[in-house]
């Protein structure tokens, strides 16, 4: 297996981008990544696009071909593949690109992720998001996507004593980070009261416990590690890639306070990298809800089970904490254009490891991690990155 | 003809209630006085996810829990209602599946205003008595509608009861039945119309009273029984006034009608009314007790029944399902706005 490096990253602004169509977003992120990598289009050998539900958000399937077409690379007839695993679509597209380069099938690969969510009503948008859960046995019975995470939160509070305030602290921290990220959807700090007084969505989760609906796209350029220096002085190596599955329905999990797929994917990625959790300096985790980040930082092994809330409250996941979590603002503040999210996480980690994260730069960041979740934990993709 | 009777029964009433004062407040009516006149202190309101089918299912399941009958031995199932959720597509098929009686049985929905449930009981008696089926299920259930501001709004409620009719191990024998039917348009709902219309005071003397009196008298004449021979009497109860008056005119005492008079607490459950009244009576009846019951359906007709409680009642598992008293205990009272939302009288614009 060949070593793989990221030689370019690109990201659009995230938010309610009324002027931008799906294709405009996809091309925007791709162009900026290609520019960052200083490559020409004719060098691109393959395209992988992470996207959850263009078919329902904009009634457009076949978006691999669409992005290849509008980015002008379809003229060279390169293979373009759309990858879908709900919220983990972007992370999974990255893994497909990684495998394509690692296996020597391709040299230069573009991995993109995009979602255009605001062309449908809020009601339609939440219906589409709920399709990441089990339609027949969760959604049809009245469960919303938020309510399934609320079930996790209720149980986590019951089993581990996690407090309502600790959940709020996740949002407060991620807004603090997002305020430092010029691409973030929400660039203002909030306090606990803002979270605790926001309208209830599904008890105990309130509006400020939930990531927003967003438009946006992100892209990274991958190439064999050996030739990475030809394109950039600051390549970042992908040193581990892990993917795992679990039951689609939350009710079939052994423990709803644990995402077993996060644990398995993390173990696989760490094993490939030959590292342990202690080596990770900065992590982008899938905080689509505040409870998700608490569960994630436990299952990633940063903190023991049940201590994620306390660790957050104590500031251990802040920019200057033991492990800086969601320096971009996370899904909560940076925004969550579903298919783009997993790729945007990689963009942030690459920026951190290159030392170009500006005001939100984590000092001496050497190893970074991304954790991207599909559904309520049925698919998890974990990647590890290292500064070269 | 075999002797037939009730093998088991089950009832169901929704959890929610509204009081007449709450309705009157909205329409500029003295609701308290209205309630007093109707002898209704509250009426049941179905939750937004309830309809005649869910009520029928719940009643039928309560019925099945009380007996050891194999649902596959049920040969017929009829649901009587004036509020079937579908104009075309039977309610009974869902009930039959829900109690696992399908597919070897006949199913149909009945409609005869408020006596559709008792008409179903008569049909079941015929099938079982004639030996065509071993067991048959008759259900009377409704989520009746009263137009906003109409007098019916103070009474039209929801509930239902189910009866398993058979020839063996009966807890009560159905000794006789008699019906009295004429064409009398006192209350109707045209196809496609949301709310029924009624003839106001025309629903009284020429409709309810004439038919219930004739049905009751006809049964007494045919059986040679007299009112004092009965322990209990149940009459259709669109309000508290009508059954009280008709009982008196036929010669029944308030002691005889008390157990089966539910309308003061739950309102007029239409097709559920006499079936629920009978269920309440069976909740407390003892072997040897005799029950007289007359159902009324607008349009118009009455079904009268002569019932005797058997020794089987002593070992009947009443407590396997909630009794009427338990079903009516600790309801949740709602305001008119919630009621209007639950009943679809106000609705959100949707995409």
């Amino acid at each position, binding site marked *: 297996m060949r070593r793989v490096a990221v030689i370019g990253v690109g990201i659009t602004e995230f938010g309610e981008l009324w002027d931008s169509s799906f294709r405009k977003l996809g091309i925007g992120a791709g162009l900026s990544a290609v520019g960052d990598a200083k490559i020409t289009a004719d060098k691109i050998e393959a395209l992988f696009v992470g996207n959850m539900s263009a078919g329902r958000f904009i009634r457009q399937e076949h978006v691999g071909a669409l992005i290849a077409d509008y980015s002008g690379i379809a003229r060279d007839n390169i293979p373009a593949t759309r990858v879908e695993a709900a919220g983990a679509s972007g992370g999974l597209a990255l893994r497909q690109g990684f495998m394509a380069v690692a296996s020597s099938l391709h040299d230069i690969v573009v991995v993109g992720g995009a979602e255009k969510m605001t062309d449908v009503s809020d009601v339609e948008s939440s219906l589409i998001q709920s399709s990441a859960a089990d339609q027949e046995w969760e959604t049809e019975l009245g469960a919303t996507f938020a309510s399934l995470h609320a079930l996790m939160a209720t149980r986590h509070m019951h089993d581990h004593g996690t407090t309502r305030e600790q959940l709020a602290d996740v949002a407060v921290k991620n807004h603090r980070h997002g305020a430092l990220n010029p691409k973030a959807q929400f660039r203002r700090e909030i306090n606990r009261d803002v979270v605790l007084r926001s309208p209830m969505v599904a008890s105990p989760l309130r509006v400020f416990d939930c990531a927003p609906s967003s438009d946006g796209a992100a892209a990274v350029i991958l190439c064999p590690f050996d030739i990475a220096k030809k394109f950039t002085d600051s390549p970042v190596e992908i040193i581990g890639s892990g993917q795992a599955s679990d039951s689609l329905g939350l009710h079939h999990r052994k423990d709803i306070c644990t995402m077993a797929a996060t644990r398995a994917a993390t173990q696989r990625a760490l094993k490939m990298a030959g590292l342990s959790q202690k080596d990770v300096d900065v992590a982008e985790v899938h905080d689509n809800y505040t409870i998700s980040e608490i569960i994630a930082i436990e299952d990633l092994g940063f903190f023991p089970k049940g201590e994620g809330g306390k660790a957050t409250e104590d500031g251990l996941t802040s920019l200057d904490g033991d492990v800086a979590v969601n320096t971009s603002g996370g899904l909560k503040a940076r925004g969550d254009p579903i298919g783009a999210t997993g790729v945007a996480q990689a963009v942030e980690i690459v920026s951190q490891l290159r030392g170009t994260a500006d005001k939100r730069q984590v000092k001496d960041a050497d190893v970074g991690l991304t954790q991207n979740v599909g559904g309520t934990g049925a698919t998890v993709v974990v990647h590890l990155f290292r500064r070269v | 003809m075999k002797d037939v009777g009730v093998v088991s029964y089950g009832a169901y009433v929704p959890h929610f209630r509204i009081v007449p004062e709450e309705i009157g407040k909205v329409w500029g009516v003295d609701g308290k006085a209205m309630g007093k006149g109707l002898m209704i202190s509250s009426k049941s309101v179905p939750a937004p996810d309830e309809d005649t089918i869910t009520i029928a299912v719940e009643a039928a399941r309560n019925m099945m829990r009380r007996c050891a009958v194999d649902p596959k031995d049920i040969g017929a199932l009829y649901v009587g209602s004036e509020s079937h959720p579908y104009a075309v597509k039977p309610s009974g098929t869902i009930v039959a599946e829900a109690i696992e009686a399908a597919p070897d049985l006949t199913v149909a929905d009945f409609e005869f205003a408020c006596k559709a449930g008792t008409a179903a009981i008569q049909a079941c008696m015929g099938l079982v008595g004639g030996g065509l089926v071993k067991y048959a299920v008759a259900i009377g259930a409704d989520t009746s509608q009263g137009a906003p501001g109409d007098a019916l709004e103070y009474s039209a409620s929801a509930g239902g009861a189910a009866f398993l009719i058979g020839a063996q191990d009966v807890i009560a024998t159905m000794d006789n039945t008699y019906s009295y039917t004429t064409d009398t348009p006192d209350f109707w709902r045209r196809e496609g119309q949301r709310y029924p219309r009624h003839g106001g005071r025309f629903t009284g003397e020429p409709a309810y009273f004439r038919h219930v009196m004739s049905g009751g008298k006809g049964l007494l004449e045919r059986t040679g029984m007299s009112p004092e021979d009965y322990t209990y009497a149940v009459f259709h109860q669109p309000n508290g006034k009508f059954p009280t008056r008709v009982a008196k005119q036929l010669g029944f005492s308030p002691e005889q009608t008390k157990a089966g008079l539910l309308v003061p607490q739950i309102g007029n459950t239409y097709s559920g009314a006499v079936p629920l009244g009978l269920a309440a009576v069976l909740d407390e009846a003892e072997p040897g007790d005799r029950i007289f019951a007359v159902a009324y359906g607008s349009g118009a007709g009455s079904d009268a029944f002569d019932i005797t409680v058997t020794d089987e009642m002593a070992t009947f598992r009443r407590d396997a399902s909630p009794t009427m008293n*338990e079903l009516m205990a600790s309801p949740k009272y709602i305001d008119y706005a919630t009621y209007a939302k*639950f009943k679809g009288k106000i609705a959100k614009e*949707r995409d």
Partner: protein
Amino acid sequence: MATAPRYWRENPSRYNMVGFKCNNCGKYYFPPRIICPLCHRKSVGKTEPVKLKGTGAIFSFTEVHEGMDEHYVQKPYIVAMVELEEGAKVTGQVIDCDACDLSIGTKVRATLRKLSEEGSAGVIHYGYKFVPVRENGERPGDE
């Protein structure tokens, strides 16, 4: 939207909580599966559909305020994960009660209610929801 067949084929499980038992390991599942996720191929031919009792206890629950539009009349409504007596867990609404009357461990039983309907002209979908069980004749929340 012609979705009647999609719901119709699940009627046994939706109406009567027909689940699945693996006679290789003895475990119960709901909804039915094709193979046992523990026994894999060893379970082939050794599984059977089983009607679950529909009684159990709340494992976790939430009061949903921002729900799907089709449930707007009920909002807020309660969604729970229920641990059935047979051991399987199932997601469903808890009705005819308030969230403040419930806690983890509250006993519930399945009942049949309308789940959704395809507008005012389409098919009505029925299925299980849960109600708190009356204990000593009383339900949670009774004075």
